């Protein structure tokens, strides 16, 4: 029985880990930290699943990850950190990351879950413990702010 659970958990972890780590990177801007947060979240999922304490694994891992990113951002001012040995990152990507991280944590989380992880409003609300109206409001505010920030950055680069 426990062997079957472990096999299913390993499959789940293997399939979700890459996407989850990219989500974490978009939230924190640091590949090393994203790897650490993802590992911690998935290990908690494994432990809690083994004692049958997880109802929905996807909601569990994304909610746990978003909470971990929120706590981490409180203690650390965001700085974009590329991975070791990575090739140069395009300037546009850096501008987008910077703009993304100038948003409030809630707005950033809603935009990442909605436009990167493709969760619908209900699922996003369940992960962030928000109702649908709040999710929509954060999404509108986040998109508007992001558009304005990117426009300002492009104007500055053109100038």
């Amino acid at each position: 029985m426990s062997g079957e659970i472990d096999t299913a958990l390993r499959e789940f972890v293997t399939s979700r880990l890459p996407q989850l780590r990219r989500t974490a990177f978009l939230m924190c801007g640091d590949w090393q930290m994203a790897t650490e947060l993802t590992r911690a979240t998935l290990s908690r999922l494994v432990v809690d699943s083994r004692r049958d304490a997880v109802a929905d694994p996807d909601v569990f891992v994304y909610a746990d990850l978003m909470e971990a990113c929120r706590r981490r951002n409180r203690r650390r001012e965001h700085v974009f950190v590329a991975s070791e040995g990575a090739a140069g990152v395009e300037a546009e990507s850096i501008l987008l990351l910077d703009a993304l991280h100038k948003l409030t944590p809630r707005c950033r989380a809603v935009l990442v879950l909605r436009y990167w992880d493709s969760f619908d409003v209900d699922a996003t609300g369940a992960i962030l413990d928000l109702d649908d109206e709040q999710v929509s409001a954060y999404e509108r505010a986040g998109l508007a702010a992001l558009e304005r920030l990117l426009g300002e950055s492009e104007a500055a680069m053109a100038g």
Partner: protein
Amino acid sequence: MTAPLSRLLEHVLEGEPPIGDEVDAVFRRADRLRRRRTQGVLALGAVTVAVIVGLGFVLTSTLLKPRPATVTPIPTTAATGEVVAAPPPVAGAAPVPRVSGDDGVLDVIEPLVEGRQLRVVPGAARRGDGWRQYAIADLDGRSRGTIAVAVFDVRKKWCFPVAADEGACARADRAGDLEFVRYDNMSDPDQQIRQTIARREDDRRVVAVMAAGERDTGAQRGKPGLTGMQVEQVATDDRVFDAFNKSEDCVDGCPGFGTPVER
């Protein structure tokens, strides 16, 4: 903005490091986390048990603190845990020769008597099967009554007597493996008695110690040669039990005690 945003985010992720053995690292970390949680639960359980035991001990020792079972309201050594220290002999007092060199009971009594500026009258000690009796006098030679010590072989279900009620049993105080009851009667100044009866837990023998003041000599001179605490101290001294042979039983010529030991 929405469709371009998704595409833009894909570009941001260029330069993503390889996954490597991250899946195994997740499971290794999960095992460590499980061990830490188990240890935490065990530690919490141990602390909880320790707190419960500590509280239980404090509560029981506070709420069930034994009250003195003495007839008089004088506090006992068992109840208070105090050690009765005999006052030192008065400087210049003449040393009193020992009555007997191998009397275990006298070895216990004599220092206490001398500490009260009294003495055991030499040559006046009486003894029989299961009992000893000593005459006490002050330094001027005036009689201050007697001290009687006796051992009784009692039945297994024997209980401490109550002077006012033959059928009742007195509640005993404890001192180590001994239980005892004090029977002091100082209400009559012409017949003042301090008495303690003690019994060992694993022994069918009972020891009775009585210090009786000199009769009909007034309240001051009629005081017994030992205080109530000292009588209790003698009765609960293992050396007194051991001073009697196992076969001794106070039957013939046994001194009369204020509160008799009914068998």
